[in-house]
Protein backbone atom coordinates (compact mmCIF):
# COMPACT_ATOMS: atom_id res chain seq x y z
CA UNK A 1 0.00 0.00 0.00
CA UNK A 2 0.99 3.67 -0.31
CA UNK A 3 2.21 5.54 2.76
CA UNK A 4 -0.42 5.75 5.48
CA UNK A 5 -2.23 9.08 5.58
CA UNK A 6 -2.40 11.12 8.77
CA UNK A 7 -6.07 10.29 9.06
CA UNK A 8 -5.39 6.57 8.79
CA UNK A 9 -2.77 6.84 11.54
CA UNK A 10 -5.22 8.63 13.81
CA UNK A 11 -7.86 5.99 13.20
CA UNK A 12 -5.26 3.28 13.74
CA UNK A 13 -4.34 4.81 17.10
CA UNK A 14 -7.98 4.63 18.19
CA UNK A 15 -8.55 1.19 16.70
CA UNK A 16 -11.12 2.58 14.26
CA UNK A 17 -9.30 2.11 10.94
CA UNK A 18 -11.29 -0.15 8.61
CA UNK A 19 -8.02 -1.44 7.09
CA UNK A 20 -6.28 -1.85 10.46
CA UNK A 21 -4.26 -4.98 9.61
CA UNK A 22 -3.10 -3.60 6.29
CA UNK A 23 -1.82 -0.37 7.86
CA UNK A 24 -0.06 -2.24 10.64
CA UNK A 25 1.63 -4.43 8.08
CA UNK A 26 2.73 -1.35 6.17
CA UNK A 27 4.12 0.29 9.30
CA UNK A 28 6.19 -2.79 10.05
CA UNK A 29 8.11 -2.26 6.84
CA UNK A 30 8.06 1.55 6.49
CA UNK A 31 10.32 3.60 8.73
CA UNK A 32 8.83 6.90 7.54
CA UNK A 33 5.28 5.94 8.51
CA UNK A 34 6.51 4.39 11.77
CA UNK A 35 8.16 7.70 12.67
CA UNK A 36 4.95 9.56 11.87
CA UNK A 37 2.98 7.16 14.06
CA UNK A 38 5.45 7.53 16.95
CA UNK A 39 5.16 11.32 16.72
CA UNK A 40 1.38 11.03 16.87
CA UNK A 41 1.56 8.71 19.88
CA UNK A 42 3.90 11.12 21.67
CA UNK A 43 1.47 14.02 21.26
CA UNK A 44 -1.57 12.02 22.32
CA UNK A 45 0.31 10.62 25.33
CA UNK A 46 1.15 14.20 26.32
CA UNK A 47 -2.54 15.08 26.18
CA UNK A 48 -3.11 12.31 28.73
CA UNK A 49 -0.73 14.05 31.12
CA UNK A 50 -3.32 16.78 31.82
CA UNK A 51 -4.74 15.63 35.16
CA UNK A 52 -8.39 15.44 36.18
CA UNK A 53 -9.10 16.16 39.86
CA UNK A 54 -9.88 12.95 41.70
CA UNK A 55 -13.39 12.22 42.93
CA UNK A 56 -13.68 9.39 45.47
CA UNK A 57 -16.26 6.58 45.59
CA UNK A 58 -18.47 8.68 47.88
CA UNK A 59 -18.74 11.43 45.26
CA UNK A 60 -22.02 10.09 43.84
CA UNK A 61 -23.67 10.33 47.27
CA UNK A 62 -22.49 13.92 47.61
CA UNK A 63 -23.94 14.79 44.20
CA UNK A 64 -27.26 13.19 45.17
CA UNK A 65 -27.38 15.19 48.40
CA UNK A 66 -26.87 18.39 46.44
CA UNK A 67 -29.62 17.69 43.90
CA UNK A 68 -32.10 15.66 45.95
CA UNK A 69 -34.24 18.63 46.93
CA UNK A 70 -34.44 19.79 43.33
CA UNK A 71 -35.60 16.42 42.05
CA UNK A 72 -39.39 16.58 42.05
CA UNK A 73 -41.40 13.57 43.12
CA UNK A 74 -42.49 11.58 40.08
CA UNK A 75 -45.56 9.45 39.97
CA UNK A 76 -45.35 8.39 36.38
CA UNK A 77 -47.37 10.00 33.62
CA UNK A 78 -50.74 9.88 35.37
CA UNK A 79 -53.17 12.61 36.28
CA UNK A 80 -51.15 13.40 39.37
CA UNK A 81 -48.15 14.23 37.17
CA UNK A 82 -49.99 17.16 35.59
CA UNK A 83 -47.00 19.46 36.09
CA UNK A 84 -45.09 17.50 33.49
CA UNK A 85 -47.52 17.84 30.63
CA UNK A 86 -49.75 20.80 31.51
CA UNK A 87 -47.46 23.58 30.21
CA UNK A 88 -46.72 21.69 27.00
CA UNK A 89 -50.42 20.97 26.47
CA UNK A 90 -51.28 24.60 27.05
CA UNK A 91 -48.62 25.63 24.56
CA UNK A 92 -49.94 23.20 21.96
CA UNK A 93 -53.49 24.40 22.48
CA UNK A 94 -52.41 28.00 22.07
CA UNK A 95 -50.49 27.12 18.93
CA UNK A 96 -53.48 25.32 17.49
CA UNK A 97 -55.74 28.19 18.49
CA UNK A 98 -53.57 30.93 17.05
CA UNK A 99 -53.05 29.01 13.84
CA UNK A 100 -56.79 28.57 13.40
CA UNK A 101 -57.73 31.97 14.67
CA UNK A 102 -55.88 33.92 12.03
CA UNK A 103 -56.82 31.76 9.12
CA UNK A 104 -60.58 32.05 9.73
CA UNK A 105 -62.47 35.35 9.88
CA UNK A 106 -64.63 35.65 13.01
CA UNK A 107 -68.06 36.43 11.65
CA UNK A 108 -70.45 35.10 14.21
CA UNK A 109 -71.74 37.30 17.01
CA UNK A 110 -72.77 34.26 18.95
CA UNK A 111 -70.53 33.07 21.74
CA UNK A 112 -69.15 29.83 20.35
CA UNK A 113 -67.12 27.15 22.00
CA UNK A 114 -64.22 28.58 19.96
CA UNK A 115 -64.55 31.89 21.76
CA UNK A 116 -64.54 30.16 25.10
CA UNK A 117 -61.40 28.29 24.08
CA UNK A 118 -59.89 31.61 23.00
CA UNK A 119 -60.45 32.97 26.48
CA UNK A 120 -58.86 29.96 28.11
CA UNK A 121 -55.91 30.09 25.79
CA UNK A 122 -55.29 33.77 26.25
CA UNK A 123 -55.04 32.96 29.93
CA UNK A 124 -52.24 30.49 29.10
CA UNK A 125 -50.25 33.11 27.15
CA UNK A 126 -50.89 35.64 29.90
CA UNK A 127 -49.62 33.19 32.49
CA UNK A 128 -46.54 32.50 30.41
CA UNK A 129 -45.78 36.21 30.23
CA UNK A 130 -46.43 36.62 33.97
CA UNK A 131 -44.07 33.78 34.83
CA UNK A 132 -41.41 35.15 32.48
CA UNK A 133 -41.81 38.59 33.96
CA UNK A 134 -41.23 37.21 37.45
CA UNK A 135 -37.96 35.55 36.42
CA UNK A 136 -36.78 38.74 34.71
CA UNK A 137 -37.79 40.91 37.65
CA UNK A 138 -36.05 38.67 40.19
CA UNK A 139 -32.80 38.83 38.24
CA UNK A 140 -33.10 42.54 37.49
CA UNK A 141 -33.59 43.31 41.16
CA UNK A 142 -31.09 40.81 42.56
CA UNK A 143 -28.58 42.65 44.74
CA UNK A 144 -24.86 42.17 44.28
CA UNK A 145 -23.45 39.61 46.70
CA UNK A 146 -20.08 39.19 48.32
CA UNK A 147 -19.44 35.89 46.56
CA UNK A 148 -21.26 34.04 43.80
CA UNK A 149 -25.02 34.46 43.48
CA UNK A 150 -27.26 31.39 43.32
CA UNK A 151 -29.67 31.68 40.36
CA UNK A 152 -30.44 27.96 40.10
CA UNK A 153 -34.15 28.54 40.69
CA UNK A 154 -34.45 31.25 38.02
CA UNK A 155 -32.39 29.15 35.64
CA UNK A 156 -34.61 26.13 36.07
CA UNK A 157 -37.74 28.21 35.47
CA UNK A 158 -36.16 29.86 32.41
CA UNK A 159 -35.44 26.45 30.97
CA UNK A 160 -39.05 25.39 31.45
CA UNK A 161 -40.34 28.62 29.91
CA UNK A 162 -38.07 28.35 26.87
CA UNK A 163 -39.90 25.54 25.10
CA UNK A 164 -43.32 27.16 25.45
CA UNK A 165 -41.90 30.49 24.42
CA UNK A 166 -40.46 29.01 21.24
CA UNK A 167 -43.82 27.57 20.29
CA UNK A 168 -45.69 30.82 21.00
CA UNK A 169 -43.12 32.84 19.05
CA UNK A 170 -43.24 30.63 15.97
CA UNK A 171 -47.02 30.62 16.02
CA UNK A 172 -47.24 34.38 16.50
CA UNK A 173 -44.81 34.87 13.64
CA UNK A 174 -46.62 32.57 11.21
CA UNK A 175 -49.94 34.15 12.22
CA UNK A 176 -48.74 37.62 11.26
CA UNK A 177 -48.56 38.86 14.85
CA UNK A 178 -45.24 40.63 14.24
CA UNK A 179 -45.32 42.71 17.44
CA UNK A 180 -45.94 39.73 19.67
CA UNK A 181 -43.36 37.64 17.78
CA UNK A 182 -40.74 40.35 18.22
CA UNK A 183 -41.24 40.58 21.99
CA UNK A 184 -41.22 36.79 22.31
CA UNK A 185 -38.04 36.65 20.23
CA UNK A 186 -36.29 39.07 22.58
CA UNK A 187 -37.63 37.17 25.56
CA UNK A 188 -36.39 33.87 24.14
CA UNK A 189 -32.83 35.16 23.76
CA UNK A 190 -32.70 36.27 27.37
CA UNK A 191 -34.39 33.12 28.67
CA UNK A 192 -31.80 31.10 26.77
CA UNK A 193 -28.99 33.13 28.29
CA UNK A 194 -30.40 32.53 31.77
CA UNK A 195 -31.08 28.83 31.14
CA UNK A 196 -27.52 28.32 29.95
CA UNK A 197 -25.89 30.16 32.81
CA UNK A 198 -24.18 28.30 35.65
CA UNK A 199 -26.28 27.85 38.78
CA UNK A 200 -24.01 30.27 40.63
CA UNK A 201 -22.81 33.38 38.88
CA UNK A 202 -20.43 36.17 39.77
CA UNK A 203 -21.45 39.79 40.24
CA UNK A 204 -20.02 40.58 36.81
CA UNK A 205 -22.09 37.86 35.20
CA UNK A 206 -25.20 39.07 37.00
CA UNK A 207 -24.50 42.57 35.83
CA UNK A 208 -24.17 41.31 32.23
CA UNK A 209 -27.57 39.62 32.47
CA UNK A 210 -29.16 42.69 34.02
CA UNK A 211 -27.67 44.90 31.32
CA UNK A 212 -29.02 42.59 28.62
CA UNK A 213 -32.52 42.74 30.10
CA UNK A 214 -32.29 46.51 30.55
CA UNK A 215 -30.89 47.29 27.10
CA UNK A 216 -33.63 45.30 25.40
CA UNK A 217 -36.25 47.08 27.53
CA UNK A 218 -37.54 43.58 28.05
CA UNK A 219 -39.35 43.91 31.35
CA UNK A 220 -41.34 46.82 29.99
CA UNK A 221 -42.15 45.05 26.71
CA UNK A 222 -43.26 41.85 28.44
CA UNK A 223 -45.38 43.87 30.87
CA UNK A 224 -47.09 45.79 28.04
CA UNK A 225 -47.74 42.62 26.03
CA UNK A 226 -49.05 40.91 29.15
CA UNK A 227 -51.43 43.81 29.75
CA UNK A 228 -52.69 43.67 26.17
CA UNK A 229 -53.31 39.96 26.46
CA UNK A 230 -55.15 40.46 29.76
CA UNK A 231 -57.29 43.22 28.27
CA UNK A 232 -58.20 40.98 25.39
CA UNK A 233 -58.96 38.27 27.85
CA UNK A 234 -61.33 40.52 29.84
CA UNK A 235 -63.30 41.91 26.90
CA UNK A 236 -66.89 40.74 26.57
CA UNK A 237 -66.82 37.37 24.95
CA UNK A 238 -68.91 38.38 21.90
CA UNK A 239 -66.44 41.07 20.87
CA UNK A 240 -63.27 39.33 21.85
CA UNK A 241 -62.99 37.25 18.72
CA UNK A 242 -63.05 40.31 16.45
CA UNK A 243 -60.03 41.95 17.97
CA UNK A 244 -56.51 41.08 17.19
CA UNK A 245 -53.78 41.57 19.75
Amino acid at each position, binding site marked *: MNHATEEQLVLLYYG*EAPEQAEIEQHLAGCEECRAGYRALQAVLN*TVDSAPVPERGPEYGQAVWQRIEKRVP*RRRGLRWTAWWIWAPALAALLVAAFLAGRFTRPATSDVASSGQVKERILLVAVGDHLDRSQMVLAELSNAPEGKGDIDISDERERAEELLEDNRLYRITASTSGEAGMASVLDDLERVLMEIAHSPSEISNDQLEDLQRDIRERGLLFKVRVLGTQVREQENKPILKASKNRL
Partner: protein
Amino acid sequence: MDADDGAAVERARSGDSDAFRLLVERHSRNVFRLAFRMTGNEHDAEDVVQETFLRAFRRLDKYETRSSFGTWLFRIASNYSLDLLRSRKRREDKRERSLPEQPDILESMPAPNPGPDRVVYSGQVQGRVQAALDELTEQERTAFVLRHFEGLSIEEIGNVLGTGTNATKHSVFRAVQKLRRSLEPLVGAAK
Protein backbone atom coordinates in the same frame (compact mmCIF):
# COMPACT_ATOMS: atom_id res chain seq x y z
CA MET B 1 -27.87 -0.94 28.03
CA ASP B 2 -26.48 -2.20 31.33
CA ALA B 3 -29.22 -4.43 32.81
CA ASP B 4 -28.88 -2.78 36.24
CA ASP B 5 -29.23 0.68 34.70
CA GLY B 6 -32.26 -0.49 32.73
CA ALA B 7 -34.06 -1.71 35.83
CA ALA B 8 -33.17 1.44 37.76
CA VAL B 9 -34.40 3.67 34.92
CA GLU B 10 -37.72 1.83 34.81
CA ARG B 11 -38.17 2.19 38.55
CA ALA B 12 -37.15 5.85 38.45
CA ARG B 13 -39.70 6.47 35.69
CA SER B 14 -42.43 5.07 37.86
CA GLY B 15 -41.54 7.41 40.68
CA ASP B 16 -38.90 5.57 42.70
CA SER B 17 -36.43 8.29 43.72
CA ASP B 18 -34.10 5.72 45.32
CA ALA B 19 -33.65 4.19 41.89
CA PHE B 20 -32.66 7.56 40.47
CA ARG B 21 -30.29 8.05 43.41
CA LEU B 22 -28.61 4.77 42.42
CA LEU B 23 -28.10 6.05 38.88
CA VAL B 24 -26.64 9.30 40.18
CA GLU B 25 -24.27 7.45 42.49
CA ARG B 26 -23.25 5.07 39.74
CA HIS B 27 -22.53 7.63 37.01
CA SER B 28 -21.43 10.82 38.82
CA ARG B 29 -17.71 10.21 38.63
CA ASN B 30 -17.79 9.49 34.90
CA VAL B 31 -19.90 12.55 34.22
CA PHE B 32 -17.55 14.68 36.32
CA ARG B 33 -14.52 13.44 34.42
CA LEU B 34 -16.14 14.22 31.08
CA ALA B 35 -17.35 17.62 32.32
CA PHE B 36 -13.90 18.55 33.54
CA ARG B 37 -12.32 17.57 30.24
CA MET B 38 -14.92 19.63 28.42
CA THR B 39 -14.91 22.76 30.55
CA GLY B 40 -11.36 22.70 31.89
CA ASN B 41 -12.29 23.79 35.38
CA GLU B 42 -13.64 22.16 38.49
CA HIS B 43 -16.31 24.69 39.34
CA ASP B 44 -17.97 24.45 35.93
CA ALA B 45 -17.57 20.67 35.94
CA GLU B 46 -19.48 20.42 39.23
CA ASP B 47 -22.20 22.58 37.77
CA VAL B 48 -22.39 20.34 34.69
CA VAL B 49 -22.69 17.21 36.88
CA GLN B 50 -25.63 18.60 38.85
CA GLU B 51 -27.40 20.00 35.83
CA THR B 52 -26.89 16.81 33.83
CA PHE B 53 -28.70 14.71 36.42
CA LEU B 54 -31.48 17.26 36.89
CA ARG B 55 -32.04 17.40 33.13
CA ALA B 56 -31.81 13.63 32.88
CA PHE B 57 -34.50 13.29 35.52
CA ARG B 58 -36.80 15.72 33.77
CA ARG B 59 -36.27 13.91 30.45
CA LEU B 60 -36.37 10.32 31.67
CA ASP B 61 -39.47 9.72 29.60
CA LYS B 62 -37.55 10.66 26.45
CA TYR B 63 -34.73 8.23 27.12
CA GLU B 64 -34.72 5.34 24.67
CA THR B 65 -33.44 2.20 26.31
CA ARG B 66 -31.72 0.91 23.17
CA SER B 67 -28.71 3.15 23.90
CA SER B 68 -26.63 2.97 27.06
CA PHE B 69 -27.79 5.18 29.91
CA GLY B 70 -24.18 6.32 30.40
CA THR B 71 -23.93 7.46 26.76
CA TRP B 72 -27.24 9.28 27.09
CA LEU B 73 -25.91 11.09 30.16
CA PHE B 74 -22.73 11.96 28.24
CA ARG B 75 -24.90 13.48 25.57
CA ILE B 76 -26.68 15.71 28.06
CA ALA B 77 -23.42 16.58 29.82
CA SER B 78 -21.63 17.40 26.54
CA ASN B 79 -24.45 19.63 25.36
CA TYR B 80 -24.66 21.46 28.63
CA SER B 81 -20.86 21.85 28.75
CA LEU B 82 -20.99 23.38 25.28
CA ASP B 83 -23.72 25.77 26.39
CA LEU B 84 -21.56 26.74 29.32
CA LEU B 85 -18.49 27.27 27.13
CA ARG B 86 -20.52 29.40 24.69
CA SER B 87 -21.95 31.44 27.49
CA ARG B 88 -18.50 31.86 29.04
CA LYS B 89 -17.03 32.91 25.69
CA ARG B 90 -19.77 35.48 25.13
CA ARG B 91 -19.07 36.98 28.54
CA GLU B 92 -15.33 36.99 27.99
CA ASP B 93 -15.80 38.65 24.61
CA LYS B 94 -17.93 41.33 26.18
CA ARG B 95 -15.38 41.86 28.94
CA GLU B 96 -12.48 41.98 26.48
CA ARG B 97 -14.26 44.64 24.49
CA SER B 98 -14.64 46.74 27.60
CA LEU B 99 -11.09 46.24 28.96
CA PRO B 100 -7.73 47.45 27.68
CA GLU B 101 -5.80 44.78 25.77
CA GLN B 102 -4.23 42.11 27.96
CA PRO B 103 -1.08 40.17 27.10
CA ASP B 104 -1.69 36.63 25.80
CA ILE B 105 -1.12 34.13 28.60
CA LEU B 106 0.47 31.66 26.20
CA GLU B 107 2.84 34.34 24.96
CA SER B 108 3.92 35.06 28.48
CA MET B 109 4.80 31.40 29.16
CA PRO B 110 8.52 30.71 29.05
CA ALA B 111 9.71 28.83 25.98
CA PRO B 112 10.14 25.11 26.56
CA ASN B 113 13.91 25.03 26.57
CA PRO B 114 15.01 23.76 30.02
CA GLY B 115 15.77 20.05 30.62
CA PRO B 116 13.31 17.67 28.91
CA ASP B 117 12.06 15.99 32.08
CA ARG B 118 11.29 19.33 33.62
CA VAL B 119 9.39 20.39 30.54
CA VAL B 120 7.27 17.28 30.00
CA TYR B 121 6.16 16.92 33.55
CA SER B 122 5.78 20.55 34.47
CA GLY B 123 2.57 22.41 34.91
CA GLN B 124 3.46 24.35 31.79
CA VAL B 125 2.74 21.30 29.67
CA GLN B 126 -0.60 20.86 31.35
CA GLY B 127 -1.33 24.51 30.74
CA ARG B 128 -0.40 24.11 27.10
CA VAL B 129 -2.57 21.02 26.74
CA GLN B 130 -5.51 22.88 28.23
CA ALA B 131 -4.87 25.87 25.99
CA ALA B 132 -4.63 23.57 22.96
CA LEU B 133 -7.96 21.94 23.88
CA ASP B 134 -9.48 25.40 24.26
CA GLU B 135 -8.46 26.17 20.68
CA LEU B 136 -10.65 23.37 19.30
CA THR B 137 -14.12 24.10 17.99
CA GLU B 138 -17.00 22.86 20.14
CA GLN B 139 -17.63 19.88 17.89
CA GLU B 140 -13.96 18.95 17.67
CA ARG B 141 -13.50 19.20 21.40
CA THR B 142 -16.53 17.09 22.17
CA ALA B 143 -15.58 14.46 19.62
CA PHE B 144 -11.99 14.35 20.83
CA VAL B 145 -12.83 14.18 24.54
CA LEU B 146 -15.37 11.42 23.98
CA ARG B 147 -13.03 9.41 21.77
CA HIS B 148 -9.70 9.98 23.48
CA PHE B 149 -10.61 10.14 27.15
CA GLU B 150 -13.91 8.29 27.36
CA GLY B 151 -13.25 5.66 24.71
CA LEU B 152 -16.61 6.05 22.93
CA SER B 153 -16.75 4.62 19.41
CA ILE B 154 -17.15 6.92 16.40
CA GLU B 155 -20.74 5.71 16.10
CA GLU B 156 -21.55 6.54 19.73
CA ILE B 157 -19.94 9.97 19.37
CA GLY B 158 -22.03 10.52 16.26
CA ASN B 159 -25.11 9.81 18.37
CA VAL B 160 -24.03 12.35 20.95
CA LEU B 161 -23.23 15.04 18.38
CA GLY B 162 -26.03 14.18 16.01
CA THR B 163 -23.54 13.78 13.14
CA GLY B 164 -22.85 11.00 10.64
CA THR B 165 -19.85 8.67 10.76
CA ASN B 166 -17.72 10.62 8.29
CA ALA B 167 -18.36 13.98 9.89
CA THR B 168 -17.59 12.50 13.31
CA LYS B 169 -14.34 10.96 12.08
CA HIS B 170 -13.36 14.29 10.58
CA SER B 171 -14.02 16.08 13.84
CA VAL B 172 -11.73 13.69 15.71
CA PHE B 173 -9.12 13.95 12.98
CA ARG B 174 -9.17 17.74 12.84
CA ALA B 175 -8.90 17.89 16.64
CA VAL B 176 -5.84 15.64 16.60
CA GLN B 177 -4.26 17.68 13.79
CA LYS B 178 -4.69 20.90 15.76
CA LEU B 179 -3.36 19.33 18.95
CA ARG B 180 -0.32 18.08 17.04
CA ARG B 181 0.39 21.54 15.69
CA SER B 182 0.15 23.04 19.18
CA LEU B 183 1.94 20.36 21.15
CA GLU B 184 4.55 18.87 18.84
CA PRO B 185 7.10 21.61 19.60
CA LEU B 186 6.79 20.74 23.30
CA VAL B 187 6.98 17.02 22.74
CA GLY B 188 9.98 17.56 20.44
CA ALA B 189 11.74 19.60 23.15
CA ALA B 190 11.17 16.82 25.64
CA LYS B 191 12.95 14.20 23.52
